[in-house]
């Protein structure tokens, strides 16, 4: 019996198995409702597993919940900061809660995250990016060995998002393991390894490259004169066709579509280029989730 969590009759996390190595940035990806949040709450000792075992930093999540919480830094989707307190007041609160006596360490974290200038500002008045950095600082004040970040970059601009990831990678090099949930695919590509969840099940796990390979996709990228017309036609035949700017992507499993098919569909339009590309993370994600759904339906 592998790790699972049921609420009443609903199984939210179903038979999961995976290992995360120290200093690894491990991504949990999956559509909404895949069970990501339930899983990380269980790993942080907030929920008791209904079945199976999980160990975090060597502690069993079913029995050593407090020891886990003392050693894990968890950042929730809402950041978990007190909006009416200043950055410093928040950091001090969390430092006290974790029993951190070393105020020099808290100062160092604050400096590292570039919060010295905003230390006296009330969190609600800060831009989202700074708020997110403050939240990460609050998570780091007790020197956690594992940080768990639930959708850390939701609602944050690309520059701040980039800075956030650089920090996470930096921490990983120092030996802090990171467990990150996301549904932003370019972010998923930043992880060392990924677990793709859907419907509470593990669909695939591996490095981002593994997952892309596993999807067995190639993508036809088409540039065409009147792209709106072209897209309408292509989507009629291949519902998975997607627009990327004015270019059209058609993810294809195992070269199952012939180039001539595409050109035939676009008859009368001027095809500027048609090239075969390796799929993006997003293409692979969609293909893997779809394949899983088919498999589940088939089973039932």
């Amino acid at each position, binding site marked *: 019996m592998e790790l699972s969590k049921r609420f009443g009759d609903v199984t939210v996390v179903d038979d999961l198995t995976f290992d995360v190595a120290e200093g690894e940035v491990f991504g949990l990806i999956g559509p909404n409702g895949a069970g990501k949040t339930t899983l990380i709450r269980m790993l942080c000792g907030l929920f008791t597993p209904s079945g199976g075992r999980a*160990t975090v930093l060597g502690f069993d999540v079913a029995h050593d919940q407090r020891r886990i919480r003392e050693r894990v830094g968890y950042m929730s989707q809402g950041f978990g900061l007190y909006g009416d307190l200043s950055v410093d007041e928040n950091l001090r609160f969390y430092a006290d809660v974790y029993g951190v006596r070393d105020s020099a360490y808290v100062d160092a974290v604050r400096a590292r995250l570039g919060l010295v200038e905003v230390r006296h500002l009330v969190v609600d008045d800060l831009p989202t990016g700074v708020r997110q950095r403050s939240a990460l600082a609050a998570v780091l004040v007790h020197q956690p060995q594992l940080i768990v970040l639930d959708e850390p970059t939701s609602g944050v601009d690309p520059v701040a998002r980039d800075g956030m990831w650089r920090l996470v990678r930096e921490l990983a090099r120092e*030996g802090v393991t990171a467990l990150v949930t996301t549904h932003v695919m370019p972010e998923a590509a930043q992880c060392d390894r990924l677990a793709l969840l859907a419907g509470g099940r593990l669909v695939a796990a591996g490095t981002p490259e593994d997952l892309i390979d596993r999807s067995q996709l190639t993508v036809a990228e088409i540039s065409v004169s009147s792209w709106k017309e072209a897209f309408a036609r292509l989507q009629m035949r291949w519902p998975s066709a997607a627009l990327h700017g004015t270019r059209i992507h058609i993810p294809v499993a195992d070269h199952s579509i012939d180039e001539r098919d595409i050109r035939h569909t676009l008859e009368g339009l001027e095809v500027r280029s048609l090239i075969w590309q390796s799929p993006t993370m997003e293409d692979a994600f969609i293909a893997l989730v779809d394949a899983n759904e088919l498999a589940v339906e088939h089973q039932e």
Partner: protein
Amino acid sequence: MVTLPDAPDSKSPATSSDEATGPGRVWRATGGTGRRLRALTRKEFVQLRRDRRTVLLMIGMPLVLLLIFGYGIRLSVNGIGAELVGHDSSFVRQALTQHDRFKVTSGIAPTESAARDDLLHGRVSVAVMVGPSGLPTSVLVDGSDAFVAQNSLEYLRSLVASPGANPVRTNVLYNPTLRSADFMVPAEVGMIMLWVGTVATAIGVVREREQGTLEQLMMTPIRKIELMIGKILPYSVLTLLDAVLITTLGLWLFRVPMRGNPFELLLFAVPYLIAALSIGLLVSTVAQNQRQAMQTAAFILLPQVLLSGAMFPLAAIPWGIRWVSQLLPLTYFTPISRGVFLKGLGFADLWPQVAVLSAMAVIFTGLAAIFFKSRLD
């Protein structure tokens, strides 16, 4: 089986101290319950200081209530409109106006039917028939305002029944002038503590749920019971401060007597306020947001005020719902408060009420702990 990195013990502990922001390998013994409670309490007070709306709720509302109860609400009515019917009589006039209880019209109504018409249209509330001898024969009272009628009847009966007879000597003890403020302010201390304690605590918890910080706190070493105490402590202080404020203003503005020991009263208030705060915690377990918390609290508080004997005497509450009164903390605190303020009572007299409140505090806190715990899971 899910495994996240191995136990720290299996790795060699890091010894470099110059790497200030590196991952910690050597775990400090985390600070104890006391440290976490201090952090929670301090945070709560900082938040309170910044939150004008809550401060208004805590200080402004008690003040408004105090003024209403002290100045506005009169349990005895003066200046009730009255008229004489049939004949004029200086004896009756004098008797009626003696204590400013009645305001008598200068003219007289010629007949009983004319007087009934005056009562119907609210021109007067009382009509006294006067016989040719100048003595009252009968009285008509407008019963549509039961309060005024009660006040009038009591006085008029003695006037009509025994003109000239020796009146019974009455001595009113503890509040000889039957001042409303003396009666209301002690009860208001209890009402305010209930309101502030319940609402502030409920909102304090629900706000954390709305902000998402409750979820965050659950992921820290804070125990649920610590979180509960971390709410009860600061709001107890706040509620007690409010009680002191109301008492001080009552003594100073309305000259309400304090015949007992105010510190004893404060001591008796402790189990009462713990019961009130626990009700607040219970409210927080069912309310999703601050508005719901306010509504739920109001829903619980209104019957308390009406059924506890704080405003209306317990004896006036019908048997069918008298048992509800027995379950309300305010029912026990009101006699304590009035007893200390007006009668100078102490523990020797009030221990039964204090005992019931203590039991309630234990039961409500226990219930709150159970619900609080399961609601957070």
